């Protein structure tokens, strides 16, 4: 049953996030060996507004220890640009964790 309080909460409120921050939804993409570890190529994730990419990665690292071990040999991207791990995320962002590239 929906409690009346919910109607007063900000849009995007997610009861799994124990803060008053508004939540955002970002798209996360996995490629190469990371896709094999996580078992999927993309996922939508809810986070607190402004959470850094590092925090998003930490969630996956907790779920997939093998992924956490690759941290030093990954770079992050936000909206198709390489990005620092400290980059804050906003609603609708597309994030990827990229293994060393081997095209050509």
């Amino acid at each position, binding site marked *: 049953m929906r409690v009346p309080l919910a109607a007063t909460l900000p849009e995007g409120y997610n009861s799994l996030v124990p803060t008053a921050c508004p939540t955002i939804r970002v798209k996360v993409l996995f*490629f190469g060996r990371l896709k094999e570890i996580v078992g999927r190529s993309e996922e939508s994730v809810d986070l607190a507004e402004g959470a850094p990419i590092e925090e998003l990665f930490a969630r996956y690292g907790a779920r997939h220890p093998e992924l956490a071990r690759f941290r030093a040999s990954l*770079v992050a991207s936000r909206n*198709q640009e390489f990005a620092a791990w400290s980059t*804050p995320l906003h609603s609708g962002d597309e994030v990827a964790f990229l293994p*060393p*590239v*081997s*095209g050509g």
Partner: protein
Amino acid sequence: MAVPPNTDLFVLVREPIDMAALVRHVRTAEDGAVVTFDGCVRNQSHGRSTLYLDYEAYESMALAKIHEIGAQVHEKFSIDRVAIAHRLGRLEIGETSVFIAVSSPHRPAAFDACRFAIDTLKRTVPIWKKEYFADGAVWADGELPPAPADTPAAKPAS
């Protein structure tokens, strides 16, 4: 592959790369040189016999990064046109995975630009290859692209 006239050309393809079409595309009456790079699938890796390769890409970002390389070669070198094609999916031994063609009035610029383009592509474009052998498969060793350093107070993105 259909090529628009009078422009550079950057494509990701899943069929064999039409190298002759790319050369025709960059070559104009003003050019005295066309330099090409044909990256092809080798039959071994670290002493193991390769059966085939499978390439995958973060396609939207890969294409954006290839366009950036195109803009950089025009800034850095006196070239006319550049075409870059990368193939994705399963490639057999001897097939072309990447092809670059650069035209210029004089050859040094075309050589330099072609070299810069392939070296930069291999370092910055999010494409990965998995190498299949008789007894297993591995993701190829790659290069970690340069990324912005962390800052405690990263500038909020717009």
